[in-house]
């Protein structure tokens, strides 16, 4: 249990309301597998049937978007922080 995962409000129904959970895995895919074992159904909200990240979900490792680091194959290390956020239109445009 070495990776800190920040869970957005809309996914906390799966984590019993916890905003931060711990998980493990060498890649994002591994981590999501571990989280799904802890919180059944969690993975299905983030990954589509064809095995890619959901279009409206952004996942960051230490504040960097995993889509530019290999997506689900992005490597993880002990002590990393993973943040999951829904894609929104953003701010002051």
């Amino acid at each position: 249990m070495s990776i800190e995962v920040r869970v957005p409000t809309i996914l906390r129904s799966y984590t019993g309301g916890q905003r931060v959970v711990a998980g493990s895995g060498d890649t994002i895919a591994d981590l999501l597998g571990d989280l799904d074992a802890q919180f059944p159904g969690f993975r299905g909200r983030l990954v589509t049937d064809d095995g890619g990240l959901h279009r409206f979900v952004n996942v960051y490792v230490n504040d960097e978007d995993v889509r530019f680091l290999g997506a689900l194959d992005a490597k993880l290390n002990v002590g990393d922080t993973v943040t999951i956020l829904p894609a929104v239109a953003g701010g002051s445009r």
Partner: protein
Amino acid sequence: MTRYESVLDACGNTPLVGLPRLSPSDSVRLWAKLEDRNPTGSIKDRPALWMIRAAEAAGTLEPGDTILEPTSGNTGIALAMVAKMRGYRLVCVMPENVSAERTQLLRMYGAEIIFSPGAGGSNAAVAMARQIATEHPDWVMLNQYANIANARAHYETTGPELLRDLPTITHFVAGLGTTGTLMGVGRYLREKVESIEIIAAEPRYGELVYGLRNIDEGYVPELYDATVLSRRFSVGTRDAVLRTRQLVEVEGIFAGFSSGAILHAALAVAHEAVKAGRPADVAFVVADGGWKYLSTGAYGGTLADAEDALEGQLWA
């Protein structure tokens, strides 16, 4: 030549200034593109002008028409000025939790404002604007999130200016919102500069802003093309405030918080270049000045206080 026929002609051609103190070394340098030096004080003057000119050229916008736009700030302010100068009425749909200065500026330039719920962020403003558009089919929605003239403005002006002023550019860093700046400048520089890195800095707000009921209510701007980007960083409120303060304290540049977020990402790639022993010229965008955000109180006090002050606000 710094004389112009009208204020609209003074859009763009902003200064690129070095950051001698924040640059990590003589061979890894940071350069700030001062977009606050545009007529209404932000980078959004470029897309506002280009979107209106494109609509005029296409014949979809004629004097006396009403423009409708979901915007929580700089684009609205820029559109309001251009609309006033060219004879259009502007109706802005914006979240209720934006700073008071924005509302005042919009009204000063003659825009009308319809507020959307703050909890829905810009998503709610976009949705409400779409609804209003169906009720007023004669109103023109420029839709900055999907309008190719938004990205085109940066492809035709911001990009060439950067390359002209910094032929040795290795990295370009800008904020990710409508994605227009990064798509336009990014495409231009990729055509002209081998192995250029295009870096996005995306603001990460307080939780309130991400208050969707369902993942499927999410939104990715139509303009967004991930293949233009090399990397994408999410920058939290604390880092954005810290860098915004550093920028004014160390380099004398008084900027808004989105520019602090962009600087944070620019410093990250600059320090990686130092570590890798590679020279780098990192250009980043100062999107606007700090004036509109003074009322947040986030320029003084502790970082924790500033973070609290900006909680739930759309600071970029």
